[in-house]
């Protein structure tokens, strides 16, 4: 794993993003969230999930997002992940105002910039371990040989060598989590988004996972993690508390 995962050059209509912060070497925010609000409409009722949130996340940060249920943690994560259009405000990642991108470009952005780790791992049950890890590469121009090499390397790093041909249900919870992390990291995305990554693990395995996150962060990986578990907070460099959609 590289010490500083490179930012992917990403272009929108011929206009390239993501170069300046690398070229100048100045420490700029990797993610800028400005006046972010999200309202869900349910019939005639409006639910305020996020209210005027401002947040800067720098390259190499390991952010924990905490808060009670319904505080807007998951909404914040899905908005950061380019999956959930905000009602108001901007999300700028590596100088790309991501919600101004056309939908298909937004999908490309997710592929190049983000690695998702979902609660309950969310591996595809009918794909083998290595196929699950190769999933983000399957829509790239990379050859099968390249994909296998990249997936093999990351699986080895995750301690899963020899288990490449197994199906997810033949693995333990901890191993499944490692596969999910491998899938999220296989194409070296600048940002790792994790939603309750230890939620389905026993405390020992959960701790091992957090150690793994910590070591990834030490190598320069930017991580944004939503968690309920206060023990996980100790591993992160910064913690954000959300209550009623606001940072407190």
């Amino acid at each position, binding site marked *: 794993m590289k010490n500083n995962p490179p930012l992917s050059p990403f272009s929108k209509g011929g206009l390239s993003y993501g170069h300046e912060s690398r070229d100048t070497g100045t420490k700029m925010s990797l993610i800028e969230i400005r006046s972010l609000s999200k309202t869900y409409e349910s019939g005639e009722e409006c639910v305020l999930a996020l209210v005027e949130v401002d947040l800067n996340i720098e390259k190499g940060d390991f952010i924990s997002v905490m808060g009670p249920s319904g505080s807007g943690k998951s909404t914040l994560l899905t908005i950061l992940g380019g*999956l959930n259009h905000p009602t108001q405000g901007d999300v700028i990642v590596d100088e790309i105002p991501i919600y101004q991108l056309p939908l298909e470009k937004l999908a490309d952005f997710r592929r190049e910039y983000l690695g*998702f780790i979902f609660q309950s791992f969310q591996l595809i049950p009918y794909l083998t371990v290595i196929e699950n890890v190769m999933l983000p590469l*399957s829509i790239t121009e990379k050859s099968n040989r390249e994909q296998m090499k990249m997936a093999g390397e990351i699986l080895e790093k995750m301690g899963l060598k020899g288990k490449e041909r197994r199906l997810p249900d033949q693995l333990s919870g901890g191993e499944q989590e490692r596969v999910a992390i491998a899938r999220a990291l296989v194409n070296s995305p600048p940002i790792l988004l994790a939603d309750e990554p230890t939620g389905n693990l026993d405390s020992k395995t959960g701790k091992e996972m957090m150690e793994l996150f910590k070591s990834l962060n030490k190598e320069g990986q930017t991580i944004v993690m939503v968690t309920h578990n206060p023990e996980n907070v100790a591993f992160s460099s910064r913690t954000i508390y959300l209550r009623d959609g606001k940072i407190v």
Partner: protein
Amino acid sequence: MRLRDISISNLRRRKSKVFFLILGLTIGITTVFTLISVTRMMNEDISNKLDEFGANILIIPRSDDLSLSYGGMNFGGVAVDTQALKESDVPKIRQIEVRENISTVSPKLIGVVEIEGKKVPLMGVHFQEEIRLKKWWKIHGGAPRSREEILLGNEIAVRLFKSTGESLSINGRSLRISGVLEETGSQDDFLIFGDLKLVQDLIKRPGALSLIEVSAFCNTCPIEDIVAQISKVLPHAKVTAIKQTIQTKMEALDHFKKFSFGISTIVLLIGGLIVFTNMMASVNERRREIGIFRAIGFRKSHIIRIIFLEALIIGMMAGVVGYLLGLGTSHLIGPMITGTKTGKLLIDPILAIGVVSLSAVIGILSSAYPAIHASKMDPTTALRLL
């Protein structure tokens, strides 16, 4: 790994559902192929029967005062006709646009000669064509092999007290009787048949023809088209279709074709509906999975391609199985429907490709809405299910 690997793996996972999906579409394709095959068999059967029926187009000189009567043996008008048919007209018939529908062309010259004080009708023919046309002929002896041989109708042989191997003198030429026809119950019983050139010499009308009989089959075009095209190349002739021999069968075939088309459409619609409902259910079951795909950067078009690839694989498998089953089914039930003794395997690569392609197209068309629906699924809604 490519998108096709995801499609194939998903199909492998859902083996029983895929089996029933293929089965549903296979039934449709088998039905369609069987109906096409049986229709073709019926067509072929009619073509074969046409040969047995003999000629179905008659070409005679265009003349107002012509009183030719083939069955009634009155040929008076032919001799005085000013627009007589010529031997050079025969190749023109073979050059019409739908010439592949022409089976046999049999030119004839009819005259009357006096033999032993009796007026006897004499017909000049090309024996090879005539025997092809009149498959019901049974000859005691053999057909003439040279211009110096003749064939006698049963009744004329009795009247002239002649039999096979004897000689008969016509207009001073001694001709050998190569054979005598068994009774046909037609005008042929009263005729003496000789080679066309011989008869032209005997009645001194070189190159002349009285009529031309044509046997044509009409699988791909109506007989009226053949008649019209012959009329165009022979403007001096009157071309008439003897339609009654095949009309009933062609009408029956036409009805069967319409029936087959109706059944095929219904069965394929049902097949398509099975694919549609299954794919729709599959897409809804895979909401979570589609959410993950979208979250890790799959475009809408990638999702559509995964679904379409699955539909294409299912469609092609159903097409191949349907084709093979249809081949067997038509081989078994074809003879029962057409009335022929044995059904033959209709191996036509174009039809095979057509059937498999049809199945694939139905699979894809039926999956179009589920695929678009899947691509439009909101990833956040799917992820809330995580």
